[in-house]
């Protein structure tokens, strides 16, 4: 009986258009949109790109060449230097192949055509080089080669009174939160599959429910099969969403993808249980319950900042307990804690435990309410 119900629950779920749209198409479409929309922003904010520059070394400046060799090497070189004669260098600049042309001489001079970030970097580099050259030159005039050597060492040494300790090994890019929010919303949309369970099992909601209640299949078996199938469907949808974001869109979801998968699966079960519980309350019509479920899910998402980021802060200030039990907030905070506090897992574990408790509590409450044997009215 269980297996029979389970298999047909899966069949109906897979063929339900709303479910496919909200749990599969929606995250794929919105995730792709985020990727396209944030692509330029992300590159500029997080990834430093090497600045292409042409150098006209008519003075044959060995000091500059030594510095240039230094800053064009390494994992993240500041400049990509091309040596050329004056005519060729200006042609490269004109064609946009380089962002500027540096001329050697008594002091470095710079020729640029734009005023963007690359040009600012070149300008700063040239100014710093000239400034330091002047100091080293003055030192040599006053104290000879030894003084110049000391000055050069002093200028290149990094002196700081604070130690820089990275907060996280995770992805600190703010934009990643949008993808976490997207996963959170997909998890909350699981409430629609949860609601479907009550629809097909309660005689006072649908004719289908009434027909099932007339059969000799115990309601507990039927409910267990429906709930298991819904959890499985939601799990697959969550895994698909995470995989799409991580592997197709190539978004860095943090230090440990396997834990992101686990979190997403658990988050999905929270959504299903929430829908199951909401569908079990009261003797309202199918449409009314659908409206309530969607409204509650959206409201919880709104309060948790999944729609407007500042709302999270507002609720944390005014009603700090609320988002501790708000499933949407707990889900989004799990991703946040997972990524940002990767060294300290206590916040993440607290959220995971809360999610597990919410899942079990809602499922048990739903069972208790749905297993009512007779109805006062149909």
């Amino acid at each position, binding site marked *: *009986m269980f297996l*029979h*119900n389970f298999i*047909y629950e899966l*069949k*109906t779920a897979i*063929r*339900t258009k709303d479910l496919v749209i909200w749990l599969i198409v929606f995250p794929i479409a919105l995730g792709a949109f985020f990727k396209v929309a944030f692509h330029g922003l992300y590159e500029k904010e997080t990834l430093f790109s090497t600045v292409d520059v042409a150098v006209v070394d008519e003075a044959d400046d060995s000091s500059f060449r030594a510095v240039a060799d230094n800053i064009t090497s390494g994992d993240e070189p500041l400049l990509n230097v091309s040596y050329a004669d004056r005519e060729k260098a200006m042609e490269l600049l004109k064609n946009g192949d380089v962002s500027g042309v540096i001329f050697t001489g008594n002091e470095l001079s710079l020729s640029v055509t734009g005023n963007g970030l690359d040009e600012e970097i070149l300008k700063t580099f040239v100014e710093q080089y000239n400034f330091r050259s002047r100091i080293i030159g003055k030192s040599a005039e006053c104290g000879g080669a030894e003084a110049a050597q000391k000055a050069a060492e002093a200028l290149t040494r990094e002196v700081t009174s604070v130690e820089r300790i990275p907060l996280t090994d995770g992805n600190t890019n703010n934009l990643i939160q949008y993808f976490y929010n997207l996963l959170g919303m997909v998890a909350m949309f699981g409430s629609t599959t949860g609601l479907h369970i009550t629809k*097909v099992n309660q*005689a006072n909601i*649908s*004719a*289908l429910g*009434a*027909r*099932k*209640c*007339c*059969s*000799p*299949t*115990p309601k507990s078996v039927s409910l267990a099969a429906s709930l298991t199938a819904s959890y499985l469907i939601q799990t697959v949808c969550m895994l698909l969403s995470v995989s799409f974001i991580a592997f197709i869109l190539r978004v860095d979801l943090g230090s440990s993808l396997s834990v992101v998968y686990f979190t997403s699966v658990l988050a999905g079960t929270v959504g299903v249980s929430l829908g199951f519980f909401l569908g079990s309350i009261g003797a309202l019509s199918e449409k009314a319950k659908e409206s309530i479920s969607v409204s509650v899910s959206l409201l919880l998402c709104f309060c948790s900042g999944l729609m407007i980021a500042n709302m999270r802060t507002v609720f944390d200030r005014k009603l700090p307990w609320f988002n501790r039990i708000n499933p949407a907030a707990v889900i989004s905070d799990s991703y946040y804690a997972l990524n940002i506090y990767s060294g300290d897992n206590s916040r993440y574990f607290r959220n995971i435990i809360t999610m597990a408790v919410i899942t079990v509590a809602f499922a048990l409450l739903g069972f208790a309410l749905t297993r009512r*044997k*007779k*109805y*006062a*009215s*149909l």
Partner: protein
Amino acid sequence: MDTPVVKIDNLVKRYGELIALDHLSLEIKEGEVFGLLGPNGSGKTTTINCLLSLLSFDKGSISIFGKEMTPVSYDIKKDIGMIMQNVAVFDELTVYENIDYFCGLYITDKTKRRTLVDEAVKFVGLEDFVKFYPKKLSGGLLRRLNIACGIAHKPRLIILDEPTVAVDPQSRNRILEGIQELNREGATVIYTSHYMEEVEQICTRIAIMDKGKKIAEGTKDELKRMIKNTETVSIDVIGLEDETVSAIAGLPHVYDCNYDGKKITVYCSGGKHNLIRILSELQKRDIGFGRVYTELPTLNDVFLEITGTALRDKEE
């Protein structure tokens, strides 16, 4: 004495102040096609829902196959087939899958189930539509699918709650013939409807309900014998004088007579030659007449005489 298949004793169901079932008692014997006839809101569906333990009730008792019916009476439920008033099938499953699913709630053996599903498909004539989804079916075919889902497991007791609502005449006839066939195969049938013609056509015994009460019960002949009217004669005739109308009203076995200027309607109770006597009265006075027709009493007449309201008027 045979144990009735269904026994409802003194059933009372209230919705707040409204009494939906008012001390209803019924006994349905094995092999019967039992009709529950009454206008909308008379309590037919409430009776069925209480019978199936879907609805709670305030007073009374229900037993099926000699055992008390409760929501966990799974041994009783396995022998009941329910066909709902509203079509109850999954839009996401094909015709075959729907029947297989509902049959599978009763029959666990896959091989046996496959045979039963094939038989049910054939029985309702949906062989050409097994791979269709319900949304692609016409209203009549959908009703047939609804029936197949309810009877595929070959139940001993089949309950049909207004299965022909919004069905075309062809499908309706097919459904009614099917119900009679199921009955011939041994199933006891409970059939609710507000279409008296259907109930007259297929039911061996009928209970007429109104305002939650059973107002009459018996075979259709027994019910018709309960009322005064045995024959209604109508004659199209123009310009009858009051004297003639009075003369007809005074004929033996005539208990009422109406004349509207175009047609005289004469209600008779008993007697064998009422029509001849009425026509003789007109001929004696040399009065010409048009169409003449005579009607035997219907269940609507039974309902009318007992409640003072026609069944059809109530529907309107």
